[in-house]
């Protein structure tokens, strides 16, 4: 009985040292994925419980943060992802690849027209723009932008092909740029050249 106590205590010590410190990062991503605090906390809690149950499957020395994100992303995909596909079913491919370039470029050498615009956009606006992305795009954008995971790591976490990660990230960026641009036009920060 004493043995089991020792084994359990050792496992618990390892888990608290290696896994729990990532709670902050998991919660940050969970908030952007679920878009509300309560679901985000439930998601993180569920992820840690699952991770602890499967702690013997974690290979010591491998990337614990990525492993935890994989568990959490999986729970999110299965249980939290909005059942109906996002209503924002815009055809991403219709957005020009260099959309903002077309809108912002003045054709003048050494000008930085975007800086003035950036100065007017708040953190919250960026947060909202990210939250407005459809789930599939938002997931890879958050894992890349907020967490700095590499394409390969994202592919493993979200169980996607490398090419899918790249294309979703690309399209997510385009949507994000468009969203922020439209926000800026609506608020009168810039004019839409197309109009």
């Amino acid at each position, binding site marked *: *009985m004493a043995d*089991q*106590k020792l084994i*359990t205590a050792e496992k*618990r010590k390892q*888990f608290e040292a290696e896994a*729990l410190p990532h*709670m*902050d*990062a998991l*919660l*940050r991503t969970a*908030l*952007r994925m679920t878009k509300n*605090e309560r679901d*985000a*906390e*439930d998601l*993180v*809690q*569920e992820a*840690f*419980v*699952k991770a*602890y*149950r*499967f702690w013997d499957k974690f290979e010591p020395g491998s990337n614990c943060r990525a492993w935890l994100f994989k*568990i959490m992303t*999986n*729970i999110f*995909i*299965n*249980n*939290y992802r909005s059942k109906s596909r996002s209503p924002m079913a815009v055809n991403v491919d219709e957005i020009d690849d*260099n959309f*903002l*370039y077309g809108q*912002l*470029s003045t054709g003048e*050498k050494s000008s*930085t027209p*975007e*800086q003035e615009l*950036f100065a007017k*956009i708040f*953190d919250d606006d*960026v*947060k909202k723009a*990210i939250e407005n992305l459809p789930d599939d795009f938002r997931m890879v954008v958050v894992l*890349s*932008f*907020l967490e700095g995971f*590499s*394409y390969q790591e994202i592919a493993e976490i979200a169980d996607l092909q490398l090419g899918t990660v*790249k294309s979703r*990230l*690309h399209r997510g*960026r385009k949507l*994000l*740029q468009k969203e922020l641009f439209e926000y800026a036009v609506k608020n009168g920060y810039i004019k839409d050249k197309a109009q």
Partner: protein
Amino acid sequence: MNCQEALDLLYDIIDQEVSEIDEAQVRSHLEKCRHCSEIFRLESSIQNFLDAKTANVGSSDNLESLRSKIVSDLDGIDRTEMDCSSKSKLGGTTLFMVSAAALIILVGASFFTSDLVRHYNVYGPLEQAHFAAQLHQPSNSVMEQTLAAVKSSFGFSPGTVVNSFSLIDARMEKILGVDMAHFVYADNGKRVSVFVALSDEFDVPSGLKDHKVVRGNLEYYDHHCRGCRLVYHQSGSAIIITATEDKETELLSFIPGSTII
């Protein structure tokens, strides 16, 4: 390198996912091409802006309360682990002491240990498969293949919606040496696994046969254990086993489908 080739590598460069050779080629193109170089400049500038904005995305004020919730969950898991092991140790010790003392009690004690052995050998693999499914990524094509296979070889047709649960995953698995279909239903974080096997190959565990539960015209064999509840049910030529760790979900009213006659 032409413009298109350079622009194709735009985000790979921004994300630092490009080889040194490719990067050098792109840089040398940018020196010659003002159009591309302006696009690269603008896109990097946008990325720096987004990085700066998202770096401030704070998480939550509730970190401490979340932490204590998680810690208390871990405590719970630790306790069940220790309980379970103390049971088996106790079984062993009892067996040893009693074997020296009285034959009658020995019989009792060996029942006790055999109970535990039965638990791990008979129910354990199904429980493990139920828990493992939570780490598995569903695949639509595998799901469709499994649904078709179950219809044709087990004569069983599972529903895609059962009560408030919907089918999210299905695949074939070898559990306890038998090929079974494993369906996973989910509803707001609750999960039910449904295993389907041929009754020629798999039977309700003998220890459970005395604990029949009758509901309407259906007969169930209900196994409660610490982490997971399993309900066995014969339907035509198939054995259906439902499993969940969620205490709120009533497995006796969870009827995943019907046998095709």
